């Protein structure tokens, strides 16, 4: 991911700013669709990277860093910022900085700016939300400010697009060093800092004094330090009597004391910057009793919407795929290739692409809430309850976004500074039903629950759908509690969270987020599904030598003696052949293990393939069931409904089996992408393994209980 965008010669600019400074809007404005994120299986990166064109031939690489308040962070996401900037050896070490500050909050946002200046690379200051400032008559004399802070200043607005050209132009100047020398630094070091810097600097070629001091402050957790280096620095820090925390506060206060006067005659900071609107809305949304009620109402509506709104576009996609398959079947020659294409590839792909509307709607609604500033209120409201379960208020954000996908959710736990709270959040997050389970739920709920209206307005299937989500949520909390008791206690835990002003969500930001997530789903999940569909098709169409012919022969004889109709004969032949194929052998091999849960060997195959990623289930079912069926009926659901138990003749997908299978998919850890991210975020396979076994064990046990209770 890091090296992908063009050659090494391309210059790198870091985009930095406080949380809620509107930095991401500027990133989206500058890079548009030219951006990549790593929020999906396989490609886990820490930052967003985009390309910004300067002219026809030239461009620079823009890296969006997480929002941070200062170089003295507690949480993982903020740590990433300072870590990247105190190691000049790092591949992505920037050649220049674009610093974004909220124009109405300059009196706080210049803190990190001043620290960035001390890194010794050129910086341009973007004063964001300039449109809002104008409306409120809060004008900033940006030229005067530019002289005072010794850096170019641009007025920008992520909303109106103001300042885009100028920002790019100045960025170009910074890189070519035409007008701007690296800034001379904001603060001179104190005596103890100088002492430490003198000893540490020689160990890290290319660092300046301030970077050396930052290494001294943070040596315990900086990733690029070897164990020996950490020990060496620890010795230096101790020998010099370097009081890290005290010096951090002094450094911060010095900076405030020096940039506050600079702002006096360039900024209209007299006005309160919290809007009356925010205060009024918060009276309701953060109300002790009404607040939580509204939260639950919002969540309820979100999931109801997914089920109800998405049904129309889903029908269109389903019909579209059915049409393509039928057309191909009737126009292409009847060859193995046609069968591979229609029964293998298209069946698998169609089974999964049909769920794009649901995933898009979910991501759309979640990013809408996030953009509007509501999520921080949720953290505030539920922090104390979450703490009772060994979690942090911020864990709730992870749990909510996990209903879209556990991978970005687990990455979002970096905002939790306490390791134990973070670990528990990571462990239980995948129990929340993600969008990949939507396809499985949708297909199986239809067999388990009739489509009728209850209580006048509620769709029973939608309620069942919600019930599965609630089940996942309930067990996430139960296991959080278990882990809270089992795991060792450690270190301090923080809430300290800024609640941003409410603002109208920017459609560009929301749209890009949805597009990014859906594209990743289609590309990444699509690749896996395509691959598995083809393998499955091969496994299902070939078998141990002679076995399949023998099965066919046997079926024909049986059909002749029983005098079956022509279509029944064909079905019997197809199912006997499938049973004798490699896929059948594989499914039969695990059948004893899944039989107590009410599953047959066909479901066994689907469960095996689902361990790559659970959304594969539907694709697998589609592939298995389209083999041997007339392609007229493309819908997986219809084919599954026709499936009969060979012994009793009853529908295979009866209530007990369907519910058991549903429960299995609620709990089982079936996503390689998630396990990989858990390994990366926790630093060892230990936690990923634990997660795999506790979730899958829970799934097996619950399915067993439910099946035996219902049948």
């Amino acid at each position, binding site marked *: 991911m890091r090296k992908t965008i063009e050659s090494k010669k391309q210059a790198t600019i870091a985009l930095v700013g406080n949380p809620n400074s509107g930095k991401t809007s500027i990133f989206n404005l500058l890079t548009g669709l030219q951006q990549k994120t790593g929020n999906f299986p396989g490609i886990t990166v820490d930052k967003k990277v985009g390309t910004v064109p300067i002219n026809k031939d030239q461009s620079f690489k823009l890296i969006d860093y997480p929002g941070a308040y200062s170089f*003295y962070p507690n949480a993982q996401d903020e740590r990433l910022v300072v870590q990247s900037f105190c190691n000049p050896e790092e591949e992505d070490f920037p050649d220049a900085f674009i610093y974004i500050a909220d124009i109405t909050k300059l009196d*706080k946002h210049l803190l990190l700016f001043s620290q960035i200046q001390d890194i010794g690379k050129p910086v341009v200051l973007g004063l964001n939300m300039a449109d809002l400032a104008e409306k409120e008559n809060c004008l900033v004399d940006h030229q005067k400010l530019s002289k005072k802070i010794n850096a170019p200043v641009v007025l920008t607005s992520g909303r109106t697009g103001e300042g885009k050209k100028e920002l790019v132009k100045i960025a170009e100047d910074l890189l070519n060093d035409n007008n701007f020398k690296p800034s001379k630094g904001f603060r001179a070091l104190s005596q103890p800092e100088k002492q430490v810097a003198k000893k540490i600097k020689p160990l890290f070629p290319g660092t300046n004094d301030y970077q050396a001091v930052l290494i001294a402050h943070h040596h315990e957790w900086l990733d690029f330090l070897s164990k020996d280096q950490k020990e060496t620095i620890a010795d230096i820090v101790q020998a010099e009597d370097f009081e890290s925390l005290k010096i951090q506060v002094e450094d911060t206060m010095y900076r405030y004391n020096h940039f506050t006067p600079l702002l006096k005659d360039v900024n209209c900071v007299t006005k309160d910057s919290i809007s009356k609107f925010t205060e009024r809305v918060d009276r309701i949304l953060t109300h002790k009793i009404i607040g939580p009620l509204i939260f639950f109402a919002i969540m309820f509506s979100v999931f109801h919407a997914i089920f109800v709104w998405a049904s129309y576009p889903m029908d269109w996609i389903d019909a579209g795929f059915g049409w393509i398959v039928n057309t191909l079947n009737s126009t292409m020659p009847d060859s193995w290739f046609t069968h591979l294409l229609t029964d293998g590839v298209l069946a698998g792909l169609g089974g999964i692409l049909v769920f794009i509307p649901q995933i898009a709607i979910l991501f759309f609604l979640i990013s809408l809430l996030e953009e509007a500033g509501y999520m921080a209120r949720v953290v505030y409201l539920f922090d104390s309850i979450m703490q009772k379960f060994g979690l942090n208020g911020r864990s709730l954000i992870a749990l909510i976004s996990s209903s879209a996908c556990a991978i970005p959710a687990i990455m979002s736990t970096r905002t939790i500074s306490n390791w134990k709270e973070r670990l528990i959040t990571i462990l239980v997050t995948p129990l929340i039903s993600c969008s990949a389970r939507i396809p499985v739920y949708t297909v199986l709920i239809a067999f388990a629950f009739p489509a009728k209206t209850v209580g006048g307005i509620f769709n029973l299937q939608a309620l069942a759908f919600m019930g599965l989500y609630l089940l996942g949520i309930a067990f996430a909390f139960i296991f959080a509690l278990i882990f809270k008791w089992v795991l060792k206690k450690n270190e301090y835990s923080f809430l300290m969270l800024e609640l941003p002003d409410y603002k109208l969500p920017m459609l560009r930001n929301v749209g890009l987020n949805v597009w990014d997530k859906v594209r990743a789903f289609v590309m990444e999940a699509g690749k896996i599904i395509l691959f598995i569909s083809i393998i499955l098709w091969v496994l299902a169409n070939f078998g141990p030598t002679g076995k399949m012919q023998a099965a066919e022969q046997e079926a024909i004889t049986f059909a002749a003696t029983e005098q079956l109709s022509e279509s029944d004969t064909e079905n019997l032949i197809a199912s006997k052949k499938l049973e004798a194929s490699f896929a059948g052998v594989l499914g039969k091999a695990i059948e004893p293990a899944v039989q107590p849960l009410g599953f047959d060997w066909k479901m066994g195959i689907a469960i095996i393939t689902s361990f790559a990623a659970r959304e594969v289930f539907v694709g697998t079912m589609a592939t298995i069931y389209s083999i041997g069926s007339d392609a007229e009926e493309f819908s997986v659901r219809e084919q599954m409904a026709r499936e009969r138990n060979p012994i009793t003749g009853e529908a295979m997908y009866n209530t007990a089996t369907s519910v058991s299978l549903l429960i299995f998919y609620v709990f089982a850890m079936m996503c390689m992408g998630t396990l990989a991210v858990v390994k990366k975020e926790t630093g060892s396979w230990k936690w990923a393994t634990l997660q795999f076994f506790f979730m899958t064990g829970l799934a097996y046990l619950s399915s067993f209980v439910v099946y035996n209770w219902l049948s």
Partner: protein
Amino acid sequence: MSVVINTHSLPLSDFRLGQKGLIAQYTNERIAGKLIAMGALPGQKLQLVRTAPFGGALYVKNGKYIIALRKEEAACIIMSNEKND
């Protein structure tokens, strides 16, 4: 920016709903570091607006920002009366 602590100083966690005061000092360097970086400097006004359900977090504001704090965190912020500004 130094503010003299007067005899009526009180931790923010002991404030009544709606009560206002000035940040006099912090008693915990870690919390001080984080809150100062967020803009809550000694000498600034703070008001306790409301609390979250189940003995939860404190909703604290001044004109420029709203911060959510835990009780234990608020206990590390010593406040003085507004008059002593």
